[in-house]
């Protein structure tokens, strides 16, 4: 019960933010893929599956954007896979499923329990709490902008959101259901059965995962003070944050890994966090992946403390100090990434870097992600 209250409170905050953001959303042009002649940043002729009225990519002249190291800058629209283009119907359906605890083994946990809109689409915990209050081995990452990753999970074990969504539903420690049970549940709820069948031709575990993934593809933001600054609004971020941007890209060498529009190189590095968790090596069996984890996005980082795969860093300040400390004690960390380079910051520089990280919180979201869905009833017993 407590969980539900928390979740709803979170949602209300989310709705308020959403409403605020929406009032100026229409004026903001979304970045698109128009080529700029020189020094073109990453873009492509992205086929954005059009899904509704909210996100109309307008013509944008990227050549006027600031060119920053590592091509950090505004995100382009999310690309949906060819076999699951995003549509309004899928979003409506996926949203209900995302919030529906009936997909779990004990009817108590939904995706939103651990990826709560009011808690930055994460849970505010060092390690997630799963089935029957058991602690999970890793921290729950935010779902916000997860659509931009080339692989999902801290160890990158699933390539797509479609594949990812199946994991928690059947993981014993998480929602602890089975493919068969999920299929039975959605077939017992007439609205799910009807919508899944209409959209995907079948109401089963597979199509549930696809619908949730379609919803997650609008759980993104493409506008933060930092993005507006890159697009030319000099006043979008303060002087301290501007100095922090310089520290991020130059002295702190953060763009060695947190690069590109989503602040992630989508690669795996051992940065000296945690003890027992062996990370990606469990997937690839390659020595170079010992304790390597996927570089997470830094977008919305102010919303998602505590940090790292084990939630071991409580604040951004601690995280920054981690990067200062670890290269100086290399010998304690076998297989430490060669990109963990030594630097030392002054107190002022740390404050500036923190100020910069705070400008990465998006404040324009698709209003459709802030709607609390009414969950459809099960069919009356015959």
């Amino acid at each position, binding site marked *: 019960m407590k969980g539900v209250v928390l979740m709803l409170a979170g949602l209300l905050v989310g709705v308020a933010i959403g409403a605020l953001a929406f009032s100026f959303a229409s004026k903001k042009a979304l970045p698109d893929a128009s080529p700029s002649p020189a020094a073109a940043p990453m873009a492509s002729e992205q086929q954005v599956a059009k899904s509704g009225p909210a996100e109309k990519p307008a013509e944008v002249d990227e050549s006027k954007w600031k060119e920053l190291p590592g091509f950090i800058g505004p995100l382009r629209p999310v690309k949906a896979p060819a076999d699951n283009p995003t549509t309004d119907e899928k979003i409506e359906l996926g949203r209900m499923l995302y919030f529906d605890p009936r997909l779990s083994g004990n009817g108590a946990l939904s995706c939103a329990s651990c990826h709560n809109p009011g808690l930055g689409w994460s849970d505010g915990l060092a390690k997630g709490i799963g089935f029957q209050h058991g602690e999970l081995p890793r921290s729950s990452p935010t779902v916000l902008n997860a659509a931009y990753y080339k692989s999902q999970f801290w160890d990158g074990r699933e390539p797509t959101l479609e594949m990812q969504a199946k994991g928690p539903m059947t993981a014993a420690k998480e929602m602890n259901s089975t493919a068969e049970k999920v299929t039975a549940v959605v077939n017992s709820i007439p609205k799910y059965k009807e919508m899944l069948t209409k959209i995907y031709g079948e109401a089963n575990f597979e199509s549930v995962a696809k619908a949730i993934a379609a919803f997650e593809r609008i759980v993104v933001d493409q506008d933060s003070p930092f993005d507006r600054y890159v697009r030319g609004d000099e006043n979008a971020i303060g002087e301290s944050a501007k100095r922090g941007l310089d520290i991020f890209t130059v002295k702190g060498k953060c763009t*060695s890994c947190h690069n590109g529009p989503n602040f992630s190189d989508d690669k795996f590095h051992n940065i000296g966090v945690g003890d027992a968790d062996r990370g990606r090596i469990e997937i690839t069996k390659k020595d170079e992946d010992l304790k390597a984890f996927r570089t997470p996005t830094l977008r919305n980082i102010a919303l998602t403390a505590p940090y790292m795969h084990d939630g071991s860093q409580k604040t951004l300040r601690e995280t920054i100090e981690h990067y200062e400390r670890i290269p100086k004690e290399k010998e304690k960390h076998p297989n430490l990434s060669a990109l963990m380079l030594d630097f030392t910051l002054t107190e002022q520089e740390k404050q500036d870097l923190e100020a910069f990280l705070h400008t990465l919180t998006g404040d324009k979201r698709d209003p459709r992600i802030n709607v609390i869905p009414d969950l459809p009833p099960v069919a009356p017993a015959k």
Partner: protein
Amino acid sequence: MIRASVVPTVLILLAGCGGADKSLPPAGATKPASSAPAPQQAAAAKPAEAAKPVPYPKDQGTAVVAGKITFTGKGEPEWSQPIDMSTHQDCAKLHGDKKVNEERLVVGANGELANVLVFVSQGAERYTFQPAKEPVALNQTGCRYEPHVFGVMVDQPIKITNSDATVHSIHAWPKKNADFNFTQAKQGQVDEKSFDTAELPVPIRCDVHPWMQCYAAVFEHPWFAVTKADGSFEIGGLVPGPYTLTFWHEKLGQQTQTFEASAGQKAQLSIVFAGK
């Protein structure tokens, strides 16, 4: 992905459609093979638009175009000012007291403009070419890329070397090709990469050293060159006929020039990029 079998198809197609579509970027760029019809159909469907390309007749490739590019005026100071490497002692110590300048605009004493990419943007679609096998070299030395601008054919290997006693993380940011990004932590490390689609420009940057950047340009044909320190360029092996050359500079933009190539002759062009 199944490169070997796809390549020849792409080449034919390119040459078939490249000339007809004026909206295409000038790099001899093309639509991805997957969205285009099979070559036979393409040829059959639009016979009037472009003559079917023929394999490049090497023995007729006797014409040459050469020239010199100059720059008048001024660029932005940050395009050529000394690089501050103080935050990266690994690089600073490689240079001692010597300053290394930005290479976004490299101009000689008499305006000779280096690092201009010169390439045939119309005329190559008449032929199909074999991808070059000899690798193009890209060296990381003194925390700079050498060369700063280079052309490469589709599927031609790019041999990437770290000559520095420090770590580099080379990151290509294409729009049409698959990107690549890998770390070279050891001095002397060599890796090979390639691009499978024509594209200009492909920025390449070092994730560790923010000033390190260079550009690749990927072509379906071998008719490209980059101006040297004296502003000169030369492209040989042309089959007689009309051509358009495009001159691309990372900061100054691009311009084009048409010319007629004649058997056994060298056409001379001189081009001026005007600054502010």
